[in-house]
């Protein structure tokens, strides 16, 4: 069975990528499976300078999901390129850098640093983080701002494909998708987390020091499917779907509503070999369903 996917210049051997922030810098998961078998690895969001992130507690468990307010703690782009990237199997599996910055210029600067790296296959622009005060989700809520960040990255990204990651925390996801498509995005990815909160009645305190955080995991899958469906119908560029994927069947659901590939996030915490197992399970499931090519399924949702 041929599971290859082409995403405007980003070629994957299968549609299963790991989602930013849930797979570390990749090597954390090397004891649990062969990184080379994955369709792609999206690393933890990188900023120009290292960041310490938000105060603790910054995670909370919720029914079938979790809240996080990590606040983009990361080692900074330089340390990633020097100390992490060389150990990753980047010749065999595309490594996608996830970018976070406070303004379009800084996004552009990050993009130009990453574009110069052979080991970086594509850039994913995070305009949708709900956990940082400056920029963050704001970029992802205003089509004009989202477009300006996309343009700034695209201008400095050389020949690397630029994937823009959308937030579900908007009234009209199709409008956002169109705005970043016209600004030059090569690929869309969605969804980032939904803004949420959790309260401890006993202490009368929020469970996160940041008060609010991003909801992820199986609980958000219905929202994610809806967003992917609406966005993929609005644009011509390929769409990578994510949000609550926790089985091979979930992958096919995302493909049906229009995704070309998927990213697995919170499920990597359910068990650390989750993504590797998913890659193994997908062909067997397709066979059982009589599907030989994902193209047969893609966007074939019957809506009456």
């Amino acid at each position, binding site marked *: 069975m041929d599971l290859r996917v082409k995403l405007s210049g980003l070629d994957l051997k299968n549609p299963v990528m790991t989602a930013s*922030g849930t797979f570390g810098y990749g090597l954390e998961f090397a004891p*649990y499976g062969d990184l080379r078998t994955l369709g792609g690895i999206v690393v933890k969001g990188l900023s120009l300078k290292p960041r310490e992130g938000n105060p603790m507690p910054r995670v909370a468990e919720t029914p079938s999901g979790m809240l996080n307010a990590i606040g983009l703690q990361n080692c900074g782009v330089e340390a990633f390129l020097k100390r992490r990237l060389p150990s990753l199997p980047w010749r065999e599996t595309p490594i996608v850098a996830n970018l976070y910055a406070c303004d379009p210029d800084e996004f552009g600067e990050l993009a130009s640093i990453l574009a110069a790296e052979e080991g970086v296959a594509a850039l994913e622009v995070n305009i949708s983080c709900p956990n940082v005060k400056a920029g963050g989700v704001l970029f992802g809520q205003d089509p004009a701002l989202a477009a300006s960040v996309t343009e700034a990255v695209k201008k400095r990204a050389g020949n690397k494909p630029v994937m823009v990651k959308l937030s579900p925390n908007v009234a009209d996801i199709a409008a956002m998708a169109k705005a970043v498509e016209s600004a030059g995005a090569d690929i869309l990815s969605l969804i980032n987390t939904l803004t949420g909160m959790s309260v401890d009645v006993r202490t009368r305190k929020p469970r996160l020091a940041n008060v609010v955080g991003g909801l992820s995991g199986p609980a958000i899958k219905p929202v994610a499917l809806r967003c992917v469906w609406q966005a993929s119908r609005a644009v011509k560029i390929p769409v990578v779907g994510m949000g609550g994927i926790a089985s091979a069947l979930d992958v096919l659901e995302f493909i049906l509503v229009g995704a070309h590939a998927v990213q697995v996030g919170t499920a990597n915490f359910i068990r650390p070999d989750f993504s590797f197992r998913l890659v193994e399970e997908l062909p067997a499931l397709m066979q059982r369903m009589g599907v030989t090519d994902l193209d047969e399924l893609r966007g074939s949702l019957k809506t009456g």
Partner: protein
Amino acid sequence: MPLNRCHDVKVIALNPHGPEGLEHGLWLLELENPGFPDVRPGQFAMLRPPSWGFDPLWARPLSICRALPDRWVFNFLVAGRGTSALTRLKPGDTVTVWGPLGNGFAVEPGTRTLMLAGGIGLAPFVEYTAAHPAPGQLSLLFGHRPPLSCYPYEDLARLVPCESFQDKTPEDIPRFVALVEKHMSEHAGGLALACGPTPFLRTVQAAAKKFGVRCQISLENRMVCGVGACLGCVAADKDGHNVQTCTKGPVFWSGDITL
């Protein structure tokens, strides 16, 4: 091919620990040995029965109390949803396990080593004592609330000199703090290792500093992935940097970490 250090194993046995364990929520869980490479005492594993579905979502971290050729033994206290769900396991049920995780305690065969345990913080010291090449160097101070019979204390007391202190009322806490200080003051030049609730670790940290004892403390931060990826378990090191408790710890030199 990398070895996958995440396996589904079967429950061999699950019982309250001792005659009063059930009353106090203390349990002994025995799982098939998942067959991973060497366990260092002080390391832990993430445990998650697939029967949980998506709720609870996260696995729960437990110290490896014994790593025997045929099984891994855990001693746990019911703290909330996850640990109470663990008490409903039956022999033959499946549990997904990944580990051994974290760094473990220092083993210095030539150094007098004082183990300081608070409550269920005793668990890693059972393996530590069993695996130590020179148990003659070891001693234990154990502070607890439920009766001793709820803990694997007897196993330890057979092997090394132990002192226990049951804290029954709030007034007992200063007396226990004084006891920790007394042991530390007699331990200059030695190594101290501590595991237990955070207020207990703070006491130990302060005493170690006061008496100049080299000391390691094991933190029990809430874990999500256990492998260093989610950054949900961080603690602040002495320079104010957030470090993962699951991979840089759970054991830290006491002067290197802010509690």
